[in-house]
């Protein structure tokens, strides 16, 4: 054969290059599901972000509501749908789940009301008739305007069974009226001002104490500016019939008020013309006459205690102050004082301090400025200066009494505590005081035991005479002996102090010696002053003056 020769490397044929191909882990085909997943995810996200809040509303019944169909409307704009109806835990209520749209999320806030709109017949007429055709829907009433929420803050709501009487978007003010009874008022009863319907009653409830009814009224704007602090509300239902010596008067507000009842108001107290704030409480009077009867401001109840007989004082008697009829008596009753063991009369009266006029306004303003809300400090100052109540005779023939509040500067000071009603101390009447004083004097005189005194006097006199006899018999000789002894001692003292007695002589001698000692000392001192060297050198010679000593 032929020789096998290896092809030489430099044959001109290139060695094949082995190129290893990279293995693709993931194939392109996977892109498709990834893209699909992304699209799906974005769709989900978009739906999720576009979804609004889900809220649940509690209703008594789900009548007219259907899952998926019933809409939630606000101002007739669909803002959500009912997507679930179920019971709560004990099956007493129905929970309706509502899905709100995103841009209506602000509706899920506090103060929002939900109710089901169905055909309804009320005093104000038939409402909701269009739901017969379209089906019931849930209506929303929320706060709008400047205070509107933009995000959901509350997710559980209690739905109203009846539509609210006043929706949030209605401008006006609410006021609370306190009435003795409801009369013929109901929700929706109109409120009249000068016989124009300016508002309605929106709610009523029994007061907690059970002795009044709180009626809430709503007065539309712009007429709510006519409600001032001095306005009086009265029940204008039905017919107001007055028969008196002036004739027969018949008042009604309107036919509707005949049927539905109504409330009317008018500015009675022209002194108070400030606008009433929303929520102010007023009193609901029974009729127009009662409302306009006493433009006297708030009554101020007081109580007084009288220890004397109040025969002649009747309910309705005047309480007089400086000649002005400031109030009247409202109730008279009797109470028992355990300490003094006697009965006393308790008189309740009511004062109208606004009858005092401008001075009351000033006092009131000053009291308010001082922080004295109830006027307690003012009254305590007046009581301290002698304000007392006193019974006085109004008519001498009939014996009618009235109460006068006056300043008695000499009255006894009385402790005063603010209470409700204010207890004003009293002072007995003049005649009464005089009677009392005479009675006291007579009682005191009565108490003096005259016969006891005379008996004691007699015994005293007899014992005094006995004493004197005793003195004469026994005491006198003793006295004489004492005097003699005293004289003897005086004589001995005389002897002691005689001129030549040892006592004065020795004393004189002692004085003399003392004098001499002092004199010697004086002489020594004088000599030393002149010759102090005498202490060392001794006394020198004394030359005779004017002469030479020999």
């Amino acid at each position, binding site marked *: 054969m032929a020789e096998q020769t290896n092809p030489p490397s430099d044959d001109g044929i290139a060695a094949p290059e082995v190129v290893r191909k990279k293995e693709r882990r993931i194939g392109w085909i996977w892109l498709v599901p990834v893209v699909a997943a992304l699209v799906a995810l974005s769709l989900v996200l978009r739906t999720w972000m576009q979804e609004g809040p889900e809220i649940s509303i509690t209703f008594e019944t789900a009548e007219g509501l259907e899952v998926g169909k019933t809409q939630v409307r606000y101002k007739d704009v669909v803002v959500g749908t009912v997507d679930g109806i179920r019971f709560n835990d004990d099956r007493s209520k129905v929970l309706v789940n509502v899905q709100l749209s995103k841009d209506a999320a602000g509706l899920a806030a506090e103060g929002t009301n939900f109710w089901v709109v169905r055909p309804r017949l009320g005093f104000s007429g038939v409402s909701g008739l269009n739901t017969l055709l379209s089906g019931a829907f849930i209506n929303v009433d929320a706060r709008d305007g400047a205070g509107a929420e933009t995000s959901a803050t509350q997710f559980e709501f209690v739905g109203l069974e009846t539509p609210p009487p006043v929706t949030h978007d209605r401008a006006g003010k609410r006021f609370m009226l306190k009435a003795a009874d409801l009369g013929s008022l109901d929700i929706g009863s109109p409120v009249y001002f000068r016989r124009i319907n300016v508002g309605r009653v929106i709610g009523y409830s029994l007061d907690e104490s059970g002795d009044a009814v709180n009626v809430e009224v709503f007065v539309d704007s712009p007429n709510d500016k006519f409600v001032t602090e001095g306005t009086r509300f009265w029940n204008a239902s039905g017919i107001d019939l007055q028969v008196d010596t002036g004739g027969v008067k018949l008042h009604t507000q309107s036919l509707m008020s005949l049927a539905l009842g109504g409330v009317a108001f008018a500015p009675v107290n022209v002194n108070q013309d400030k606008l009433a704030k929303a929520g102010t409480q007023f009193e609901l009077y029974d009729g127009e006459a009662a409302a306009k009867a006493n433009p006297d401001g708030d009554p101020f109840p007081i109580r007084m205690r009288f220890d004397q007989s109040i025969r002649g004082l009747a309910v309705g008697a005047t309480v007089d102050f400086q000649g002005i009829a400031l109030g009247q008596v409202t109730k008279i009753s009797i109470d028992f004082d355990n300490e003094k063991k006697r009965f006393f009369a308790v008189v309740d009266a009511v004062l109208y301090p606004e009858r005092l006029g401008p001075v009351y306004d000033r006092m009131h303003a000053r009291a308010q400025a001082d922080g004295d809300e109830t006027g307690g400090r003012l009254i305590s100052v007046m009581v301290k200066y002698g304000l007392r109540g006193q019974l006085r005779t109004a008519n001498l023939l009939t014996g009618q009494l009235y109460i006068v509040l006056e300043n008695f500067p000499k009255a006894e000071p009385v402790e005063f505590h603010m209470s409700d009603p204010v207890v004003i101390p009293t002072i007995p009447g003049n005649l009464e005081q005089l009677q009392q004083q005479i009675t006291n004097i007579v009682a005191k005189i009565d108490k003096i035991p005259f016969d006891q005194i005379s008996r004691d006097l007699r015994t005293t006199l007899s014992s005094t005479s006995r004493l004197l006899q005793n003195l004469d018999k026994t005491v006198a000789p003793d006295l004489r002996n004492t005097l003699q002894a005293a004289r003897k001692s005086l004589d001995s003292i005389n002897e002691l102090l*005689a*001129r*030549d007695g040892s006592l004065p002589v020795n004393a004189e001698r002692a004085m003399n010696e003392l004098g*001499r000692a002092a*004199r*010697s000392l004086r*002489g020594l001192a004088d*000599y030393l002053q*002149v010759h102090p060297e*005498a202490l*060392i*050198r*001794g*006394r*020198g*010679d*004394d030359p*005779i*003056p*004017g*002469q030479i000593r*020999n």
Partner: protein
Amino acid sequence: MSVTRYLTLPPIVTLAVLLAGCVGSPSARYYTLQSDLQATTPSTQRVDYQIEVVPVSVPQQADQPQIMLREDQGGGALTPMYSDRWSAPLADEIRSALADRLTRQLGALDVQTLTPAPDVPVWRIQVDVQRFDMVVGGPARLDATWRVRPLKVQGGRALVCRSIVQLPADQFKVVSSLVEAQQQAVKLLADTIASAIQSGGANATPAAQSVQMLGCA
């Protein structure tokens, strides 16, 4: 031990010499105004009254324990003779000398210290010496205002007088001659007072010519 080192000889010697130079005091002589007993003649008469010589008052210049000499023309200079002293305060000296002389002259008893009987009449004598001068070589002057008062004496009245007694003294033995002169002056004063008592307080006669009476009342 260190102290004795400083006590060296020369300072001790000088100290001893100095001390030796100190002269001692001359001895003091004491004088009294009461004269010797033999110079008086006791009176034998007995009177029914008693006398009471009240302590006298002397001027403060003379009321010194030592004798004060006055110069003749020396103005107001007084020289104290510290070695010549009164044996008792001058007031007591004068009083005792007066009482001594009066009792002898009148024959009455002195009841100044002793208590008299309640009903015995007593003459009370008060003397106020206003001048007691002892002038060197010159006179000795005694100037006194005196008063006699009767107590429980019938018919007696009080008398106030002033007597000035001036007696000459020796130029030599100055002090003793002056003291003697004052003794004599006191005696003359006592005699004058006795005459007033004897007259019952009517008048007083001067005892000698050297007694000068002024203003009796």
